[in-house]
């Protein structure tokens, strides 16, 4: 089955044909051009095109006549007519004759992109058959989501289940667990993937700014609003809006948001024209929204509207088996971006990472690896390259004797078994340290 969408551009102006050709070829479409209706019809008879973008005003046979002939030959062809003359009559006539849509030259790049994406979506819906529907889904674009622990497999399974639907999703998890990555994975695996994923970090914006960001504003709506501006909801038409830190929005914004989610209609700040936008909403929070509802700081109706599906990302301390894979991933990521040779991690450093409780989760691990690559010796990450405070007591149920043994071992590893420096750090003399090494039967890995 053909996977690439083919477009035929029909226009008598060479510069228009060339510009459109370049624009679409960069989008990965198969593109062909014709300078007049006669050539276009000849091409259509010998080859199937998914979308035909035709100028109305052409010498010889005009675009409207050509459109009628195309439809007679292939009723499934999607024809978009374009004209430099914005006349309602020609637009209405073209639409009456079954044109998919109508656009006036010169186009806004956003309008052109949207128009073609809408047509592409129609084609893709038309081509969808039972075989495709029943085919096993394989997640795409999840290269940044690393881990094969039970917890992460469950999360990815939930992503796979929820992505094709249009339901609202709340992603919960501690700070640094990768909620935005999961939002991206849902969008990238949904039918909306050809349309924008628009991210808004609610916590970073004041109430007024958030309102203007989400709904847009009209020129003169407030001091400094010198131009009309589209809001994020409008930009996301056809795609997904990701609202990060949803728990931080004010009660007023909660009411506004609920209204938009129910009607998918809104007006720009300072405007009175109702705007319709089709978007899916995904939210994320590290707060307990249910508790906030009980306390009265989050609206219950909004909570239920948003919380159709909940995906909870486990903290890193609950999926420690993912740490080696994450470490390898971040080493590759940062060595590549810093144009350095790939390095390794020594066993003591990896063991320490696996023991650490990571309050800042994957983000903290990522920062640690990046720092270790910068400050390290360029060959391997050692224990002393990791900025982990020793926090053994709070994590441990060991006896005092066991704790002493572990603490001394970690100190020795940190200083590459340099006895003088280790003794100094432990604030004991070298003889005492030798005695303790003997007592605990510790030995350097190099021996």
């Amino acid at each position, binding site marked *: 089955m053909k996977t690439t969408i083919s477009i035929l551009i029909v226009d008598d102006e060479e*510069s228009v044909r*060339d510009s459109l050709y370049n624009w679409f070829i960069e*989008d990965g479409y198969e593109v062909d051009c014709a300078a007049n209706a006669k050539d276009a019809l000849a091409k259509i008879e010998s080859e199937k095109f998914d979308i035909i973008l035709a100028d109305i005003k052409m010498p010889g046979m005009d675009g409207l006549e050509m459109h009628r002939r195309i439809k007679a030959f292939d009723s499934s062809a999607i024809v978009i007519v374009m004209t430099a003359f914005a006349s309602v009559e020609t637009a209405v006539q073209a639409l009456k004759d079954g044109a998919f849509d109508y656009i006036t030259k010169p186009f806004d790049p956003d309008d052109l992109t949207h128009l073609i994406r809408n047509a592409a979506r129609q084609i893709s819906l038309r081509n969808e058959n039972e075989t495709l529907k029943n085919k096993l889904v394989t997640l795409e674009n999840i290269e940044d989501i690393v881990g094969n622990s039970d917890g992460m497999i469950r999360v990815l399974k939930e992503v796979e289940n929820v992505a094709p639907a249009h339901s609202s999703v709340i992603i919960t998890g501690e700070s640094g667990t990768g909620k935005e990555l999961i939002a991206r994975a849902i969008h990238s695996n949904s039918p909306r993937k050809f349309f924008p994923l628009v991210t808004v970090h609610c916590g970073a914006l004041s109430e007024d700014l958030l309102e203007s960001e989400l709904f847009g504003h009209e020129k003169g709506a407030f001091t400094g609003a010198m131009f009309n501006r589209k809001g994020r909801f409008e930009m996301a038409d056809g795609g997904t809006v990701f609202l990060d830190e949803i728990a931080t929005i004010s009660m007023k914004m909660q009411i506004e948001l609920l209204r938009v989610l129910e009607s998918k209609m809104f007006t720009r700040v300072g405007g009175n024209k109702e705007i319709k936008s089709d978007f899916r909403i995904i939210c994320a929070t590290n707060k307990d929204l249910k508790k906030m509802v009980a306390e009265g700081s989050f609206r219950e109706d909004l909570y239920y509207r948003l919380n159709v599906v909940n995906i909870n990302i486990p903290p890193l301390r609950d999926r420690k088996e993912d740490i080696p894979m994450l470490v390898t991933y971040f080493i590759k990521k940062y060595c590549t971006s810093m144009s350095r040779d790939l390095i390794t991690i020594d066993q003591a450093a990896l063991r320490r990472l696996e023991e650490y409780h990571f309050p800042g989760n994957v983000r903290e691990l990522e920062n640690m690896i990046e720092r270790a690559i910068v400050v390290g010796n360029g060959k391997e990450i050692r224990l002393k390259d990791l900025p982990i405070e020793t926090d053994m007591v709070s994590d441990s149920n060991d006896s005092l004797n066991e704790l002493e043994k572990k603490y001394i071992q970690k100190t020795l590893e940190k200083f590459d078994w340099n006895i003088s420096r280790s003794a100094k750090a432990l604030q004991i003399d070298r003889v005492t340290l030798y005695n303790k090494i003997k007592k605990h039967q510790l030995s350097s890995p190099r021996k």
Partner: protein
Amino acid sequence: MEKKGITLVVQGRFEKTFLDQMARDIETAFEWPVSVVPLTHDILPFFDATRKQYDANRLLQLVHADYAAGSLKTIGLFQVDLFIPILTYIFGQAQYKGSTGIASVYRLRNEQYGMAGNERLLYERFRKVVIHELGHAFGLIHCHVPICVMRPGTYVEDIDQKKHFFCNKCAAELELALHKD
């Protein structure tokens, strides 16, 4: 003749630090040495008085004809507002699998949208546009990965959403193209 790397052809006033940083970042992204040369032509003949914008197709031809010889890839960095006949504006364009591209900072400035200027953000946006257009010149097409620099963008907020680097798939394709070139 041996190709000497990537050339940035600069029109208008750009800060030296801005260009130096751009050269470094392009060198990191494409692993080719980068040189910076000024555009010495008068661009007034490329101004369209009706649209009050500059013809991007003709500027691309100018850069290609007079500045691209000897370079693997050449990209013109412009301060002025660019259009192509069918579109109201463009941030940049390149010859797909060709050797030349152009990009403009004009519509990347916050001030164009009624917001306070932000030089750091402007640089970030421009870097993404330049890398994106060079990506086309190296044969990459648009990508649907939300953070990939090859993700298409028709307004500045689109550009802000993506990163300045390639996703794994595009990076692998670029790697192939770099070795082919």
